[in-house]
């Protein structure tokens, strides 16, 4: 395993310590991993909290700050946080107006956050959960744990964050998040497996001429293995998968995220974006906003995901609203 690390066991806390050192505007509890804004909950504002396994940086810790999350609770690598972390994060985020909890749809995440929500409910805190399940590589049926939460999380957290920041009420913030999720679909492919510090070697072996298609963000193998083809062909399949699941008519407007999985350089992501843009143009879909970069990663995996979100009218001002976080920053 080739990584900058001291020991596998301290990887997470060491990385978090560095994050804390780099971002004095945030407050980082190195014991629990919970990250909050240094100034605490914002009076009169609905809280927004997210969390999940680590290894997806900048998600979620990198999205804490003005215009986005109030707190994040990262778990161990690829392991959903425990309920205690989630309750700590929500308590820190709650100013009395209630808190929206953004949860990616994984069995572990759902269960742990549910337990946290019960505890918080018992304490009299209002908590609304927004479940993100955008990954069309997984069929949403009784034969699976349901679609996974992946790239759309960026959109949900930014737009719900904008809604909370402008003073919307708890139900409205949650509703904004849910509508973004409902309007979004994603699909990912991996060129290489990723290596968790504890495993010390890649999660799967992938020959030089093969790729994993329909992967998630936890280093698991995808739906199928294919021969490596040209970017144009790969991206065309990805866009088809996304739009087959949730068609967009000619004339619609979309927000597109081309998200790197951690080991793919920016130039390749732009190349992929160019293919997406051409394909959507052919279909008469206008891309009104885009984000190209590493947002929801899978450690050092080479690969990318494509998220297409129908840009419903009220999404754009909330996407454009000021944001000041380590991972996303504009307008302030």
């Amino acid at each position, binding site marked *: 395993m080739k990584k900058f690390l001291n020991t596998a066991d301290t990887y997470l806390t060491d990385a978090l310590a560095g994050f804390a050192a780099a971002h004095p505007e945030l407050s980082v509890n190195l014991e629990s991993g919970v990250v909050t804004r240094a100034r605490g909950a914002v009076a009169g504002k609905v809280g927004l909290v997210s969390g999940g396994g680590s290894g997806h940086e900048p998600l979620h810790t990198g999205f804490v700050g003005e215009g986005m999350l109030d707190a994040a609770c990262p778990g*161990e690598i*690829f392991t*959903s946080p*425990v*309920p205690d972390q989630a309750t700590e994060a929500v308590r820190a985020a709650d100013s009395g107006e209630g808190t929206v909890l953004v949860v990616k749809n994984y*069995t572990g995440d759902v269960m742990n956050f549910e337990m946290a929500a019960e505890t918080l409910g018992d304490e009299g805190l209002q908590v609304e959960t927004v479940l993100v399940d955008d990954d069309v590589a997984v069929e949403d049926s009784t034969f699976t*744990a349901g679609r996974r939460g992946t790239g759309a999380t960026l959109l949900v957290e930014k737009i719900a964050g904008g809604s909370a920041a402008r003073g919307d009420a708890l139900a409205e913030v949650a509703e904004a998040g849910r509508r973004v999720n409902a309007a979004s679909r994603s699909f990912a492919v991996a060129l290489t497996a990723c290596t968790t510090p504890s495993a010390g070697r890649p*999660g799967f072996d992938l020959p030089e001429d093969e790729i994993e298609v329909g992967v998630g963000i936890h*280093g698991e*193998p995808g739906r199928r293995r294919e021969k490596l083809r040209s970017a144009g062909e790969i991206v065309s399949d990805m866009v088809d998968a996304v739009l087959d699941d949730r068609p967009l008519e000619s004339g619609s407007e979309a927000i597109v995220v081309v998200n790197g999985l951690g080991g793919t350089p920016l130039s390749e992501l732009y190349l992929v974006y160019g293919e997406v843009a051409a394909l959507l143009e052919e279909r008469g879909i206008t891309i009104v906003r885009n984000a190209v970069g590493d947002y929801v990663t899978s450690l050092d995996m080479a690969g990318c995901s494509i998220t297409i979100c129908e840009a419903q009218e009220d999404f754009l001002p909330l996407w454009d609203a000021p944001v000041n976080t380590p991972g996303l920053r504009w307008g302030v």
Partner: protein
Amino acid sequence: MDIELARTWVRGIGAAVERERERLGELDAAVGDGDHGTNMHRGFDAAVAAVAAMDPDSVGAVLTTTGTTLVSKVGGASGPLYGTALRAAGKKLDAERAEPAEVGAALTAALEEVRRLGGAQPGDKTMVDALAPAVDAFVRAADSGGRLGAAARAAADAAEEGMRATEPMQARKGRASYLGERSIGHVDPGAVSTALMMRALADAAAEC
């Protein structure tokens, strides 16, 4: 089962998980995200310490503390499942000693909790496929007057058989379900850890 045996069981699981940590991780890497070994290890490390530090007044207290520790240390799918299951089992055993039938009722409560929380059916390729036959075997042995050791041995055997039976299954719950047909041909890591836990009980109760 007395308090000391409960403690020995937890320590036994801790040792088994320590020993099998890497294998659990590899099994999970094949169909999931590879963290089941470290998850179980982190949880039972803490549980063994918690149980050693406490002065329990009942068998159930040992299991409840173990469950609570798992919930607050493990995360992932296995943390809440094993954690609440053990808490449910613990609630049933509020005396200093428990007869085999009472332990059987506690294990039944644990299984119910796993099924309620996770919603998995037998055949979905999860820990349920090891736990359900194990609990069944335990209860049957205890009901027919079997001693703890014998019932636990039957449970461990059944758990291991159920664990092996997950190999040809296609997963319908948890991360492995994302793989669809590609999940076939791999043993479920949670079923393996369940089998380890039942075997640890059998070992702890071997003399009973």
